[in-house]
């Protein structure tokens, strides 16, 4: 018990100290997570809406596939992207491996199915009267869809936030595609992995606390927006 308390107090002191390497890891996590979720939303939200609103023969199959994509392990995504951007891969010439951009791409691929699925659920769960009401009040096709989106905006926001939670806490993609390079691609999660392997529990716990705090903060903001 004393061990845990010691580690906890040491980690709190570390957070307070403002150690630059520590802060940079926090910043990198937020930076890559933010951009990857933007990318994921740009792909996932339109995809979820399109599938939700249209009728086509293989619709059930597509929905099942979309669902299964959420369970793809991060290391598999890391592997696939690695295959493309390593020197031996087709996009090797761009030198993208071991850069924050590579992590952003990998995390976007990770989060897109989550965002798409939750967006799809939102659309399917929306009140069926929304579009007919918008239509009879004179909306054209685009206006009706936009109205639908506005009515289910909290579901959409939840989709994006879910995706964010997933990417900010993952380590497989960040490690494989980023390389855990100090001051460049070291994120909170890869730093925790490193410090743990070194036996530096206090630092690992400190990073863990900040990670949880970030996840909590994002959710609190979301709750606040919903209340309004």
């Amino acid at each position, binding site marked *: 018990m004393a061990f845990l308390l010691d580690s906890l107090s040491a980690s709190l002191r570390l957070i307070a100290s403002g150690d630059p390497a520590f802060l940079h890891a926090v910043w990198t996590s937020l930076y890559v997570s933010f951009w990857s979720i933007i990318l994921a939303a740009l792909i996932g939200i339109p995809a979820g809406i399109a599938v939700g609103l249209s009728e086509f023969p293989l619709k059930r199959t597509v929905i099942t596939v979309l669902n299964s994509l959420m369970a793809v392990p991060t290391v598999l995504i890391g592997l696939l992207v690695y295959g493309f951007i390593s*020197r031996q891969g087709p996009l090797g010439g761009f*030198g993208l491996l071991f850069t924050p951009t590579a992590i952003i791409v990998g995390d976007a691929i990770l989060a897109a199915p989550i965002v798409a699925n939750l967006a799809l659920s939102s659309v399917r769960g929306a009140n069926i009267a929304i579009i007919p009401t918008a239509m009879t009040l004179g909306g054209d096709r685009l206006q009706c869809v936009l109205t639908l989106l506005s009515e289910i905006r909290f579901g959409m926001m939840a989709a994006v936030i879910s995706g964010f939670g997933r990417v900010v806490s993952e380590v497989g993609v960040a490690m494989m595609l980023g390389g*855990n390079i100090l001051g*460049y691609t*070291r994120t909170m999660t890869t730093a925790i992995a490193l410090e743990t*392997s*070194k036996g530096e529990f206090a630092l690992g716990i400190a990073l863990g606390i900040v990670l949880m705090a970030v996840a909590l903060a994002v959710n609190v903001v979301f709750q606040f927006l919903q209340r309004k």
Partner: protein
Amino acid sequence: MSTTTSTENSGLLAVLLPPFEKKFECKVDVIAVGTGKSLKLGETGDVDVVFVHARSLEDKFVADGFGVNRRDVMYNDFVILGPPEDPAGIRKSGSVLDAFARIALAQARFVSRGDESGTHQKEKEIWKAAGIVPKGKWYLEAGQGMGEVIQMAAQVRGYALADRGTYIAYRKKTDLVVLRQGDRGLWNPYGVIAVNPARHPHVKFGLAMKFIEYLTGEEGRRFIAEFKIDGEPLFFVGGTKGN
């Protein structure tokens, strides 16, 4: 027993441990982690014996009273790997220190373990001896294992310091070549230490001491010397010539 991942990955233990286990009717549970964690496990009494290759850290371990009876076991060596085109021109270097200096001067990419491992300690010693503080976009502290660092160096066309064992294991996977080897400064001595029973009464001290005796005795030394990968011996017994 706690040891380092590179020791485990070399495959030596698979040859070295069974005869001991048979002779003394026991089992050696190997926990292979980073050097820092190996020593920490010894500090907390979670293992009975520690087998690493970081002399300065080992000495501190004993001085702090966590371990007793440190003995040299063997040594292997490090090599400096780099791309065949050798952008920093270290083929022409006169010494290890000179090679590192050339890399720093050319600001050629160098991938470091960055994880307080034995290899990392050796790397830091060399920079210090050369009077250089490696900093800048060319110096990549990867915070990962040896295999990953070698692959990263290949990807970014940079240099790295690697233990010979892991290098041999990855030789066919990358196009990096050995650009500098054989210097005394690249020798890597291994030490075995028993965890102090005065600190942690529950440790199997007797068995630990027998293990140390075995490693440094005739039988152990023979197994070590005869261990080869790809026809090349990896470790050399003697040990005291290290630092």
